[in-house]
């Protein structure tokens, strides 16, 4: 168990990176507390797997350091870091039984037989695979294979961190939530630091205490699921998290109000800084139909079960609203109001309104 510190971490796959575009990871500074559950969330190609491979030691970063507690492990190979990693596709040793698979990491490190038997039994119980211990691992279903590869990581009681690289990709949807809650349960039992890489917001938000959102090699926001949803620091976070994502609309600032398509919109607080391109960010959940507000033309209404998703046009700008009931007719003219406390201005993508002290 360890606290993990990434300090000034940069990585490029080119030997002589020139501009910032050559970097797969641009300047990462993060500290992860011992025993926490973290998620790295971002679209494909955002650098999250690169970051994971750097932490596990499969890659050496171009610049910067990785510390486990106070020990610098930047140059250590994976087997000396005491880490465990679960990959996208389950990795199991086909010719071995489940028991041998679980014992493999201990055996390689020369643990004594009594201890191996005991640990394997413990882990098998934790994962509910006791009755499978003596069958060949090759014949298991994908979700059980993935459990075994998880087990191989957890079997060592000295692991610093367990990392998951999109581990539920190949699992059937109805087993996904089962395995996900198993993971959560395991985390509570073993108290190891866990890092979970995914592009699926549901997985990240349900698993992690804290989510690191990445885009193009940069960390755009670190926060609890609630923080990411309630107050996105960047339009990317707002758009990426939430279904549908946050509305990002062109606007101008006038004092502590914004002008959107010629209509005045109230904000959470005064706009800071100047220059750059301004956009207005408001989640569809905070858009409502009211007597006053911006006039809009309803282009589509979708009933998604729990609520309605309304697509509307304000002037030339498309906009989405989520309504619990009383959805308007398609083609009708309505007025939409934005909840001021949840309406913000972003400058070049980054948040540019101050929260009003309440």
């Amino acid at each position, binding site marked *: 168990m360890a606290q993990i510190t990434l300090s000034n971490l940069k990585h490029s796959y080119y030997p002589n990176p020139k501009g910032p575009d050559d970097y797969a990871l641009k300047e990462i500074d993060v500290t992860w507390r011992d025993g926490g559950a973290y998620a790295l969330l971002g679209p494909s190609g955002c650098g999250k797997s690169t970051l994971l491979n750097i932490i*596990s030691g499969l890659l050496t970063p171009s610049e910067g350091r990785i510390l486990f507690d106070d020990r610098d492990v930047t140059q250590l*190979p994976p087997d000396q870091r005491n880490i465990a990693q679960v990959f996208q*596709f389950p*990795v199991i040793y086909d010719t071995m039984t489940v028991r041998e698979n679980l014992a493999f990491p201990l055996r390689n*490190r020369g643990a004594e037989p009594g201890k191996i038997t005991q640990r394997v039994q413990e882990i098998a119980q934790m994962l509910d695979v006791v009755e499978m211990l003596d069958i060949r691992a090759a*014949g298991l279903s994908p979700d059980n294979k993935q459990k075994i*590869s998880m087990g*191989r990581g957890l079997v060592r009681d000295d692991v610093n961190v367990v990392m998951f690289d999109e581990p539920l990709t190949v699992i059937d949807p109805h087993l996904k939530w089962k395995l996900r809650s198993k993971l959560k349960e395991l985390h509570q039992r073993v108290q190891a630091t866990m890092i979970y890489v995914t592009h699926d917001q549901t997985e990240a938000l349900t698993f992690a205490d804290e989510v690191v959102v990445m885009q193009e090699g940069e960390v755009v926001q670190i926060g609890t699921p609630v923080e990411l949803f309630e107050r996105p620091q960047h339009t990317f976070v707002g758009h990426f998290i939430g279904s549908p994502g946050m509305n990002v609309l062109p606007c101008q600032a006038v004092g502590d109000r914004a002008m959107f398509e010629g209509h005045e919109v109230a904000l959470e607080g005064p706009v800071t800084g100047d220059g750059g391109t301004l956009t207005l960010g408001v989640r569809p959940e905070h858009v409502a139909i009211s007597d006053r507000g911006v006039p809009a033309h309803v282009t589509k209404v979708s009933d998604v079960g729990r609520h309605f998703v309304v697509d509307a046009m304000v002037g030339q700008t498309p906009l989405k609203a989520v309504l619990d009931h009383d959805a308007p007719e398609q083609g009708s003219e309505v007025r939409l109001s934005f909840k001021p406390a949840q309406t913000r201005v972003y400058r070049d993508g980054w948040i540019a309104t101050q929260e009003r002290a309440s």
Partner: protein
Amino acid sequence: MKTENQKAWLFVIPVLALVAFNALIPMMTVVNYSVQETFGNNQFFWEGLGWFEQILRSDRFQAALGRQFMFTIIILSIEVPLGIIVALSMPRKGFWVPVCLVLMALPMLIPWNVVGSMWNIFTLPKIGLLGYFLNDVLGINYDMTQQPISAWITVVVMDVWHWTSLVVLLCYAGLVSIPDAYYQAAKIDGASAWSVFRYIQLPKMKAVLTIAVLLRFMDSFNIYTEPFVLTGGGPGNSTTLLSIDLVKIALGQFDLGPAAAMSLIYFAITLLVSWVFYVLMTKDDQQ
């Protein structure tokens, strides 16, 4: 709804005809010869299983069969491990991959009788590059035209040169299909290089290795052209393998009956051993 008609047979007929003309009919001709005696003039006399009995009891057949098994066992026990080692040491990505693959494929592209001639000229004691080098530079007494041992070594080395590539290419195909995650997981699990080979690479190569062993068994057991061109079965009968002996009986002595019986026995042995190999190598997968 399921309709039943006999149209499917129409699609099978071309294949049936093809197989009939290139396998069944020639095969039945051989069966026909194997139970009869002929003195020419298209006159045939019923022999029953006499030829089979005669062939199986003859010292000449048993000696050739023994040489054939020895040859196959020797080349399999060299080519399979060597092929695996070469495949493991080949690069998995980068500039050298196509270079290695082409170099490996080259020996297999050479016509078989050319391989025999090449090695014949290469190893002749006075004029061949290797023969001259061994005798006159290193002082090793080597003459594949006179000494059975030298002839055997030459035939084996030639086959290894010609066919190890097949094992290499098949194993290599198995190796490159292993996802990187397996090697990464093994690294994290602290596995040694031997463990990686034993628990990851070998199991993943098993399917292609089964094919490689089967192909090499069948080809080496039926080998004819290269040793025939290289040594002609000599010196004496020392490198007369089964197929060479068969051709001697069938075309040299024109004993059609015994040759036909021998062909069938030869075919049955090849089939039987291939089947045993296949069953042994795949029995673990049946679980």
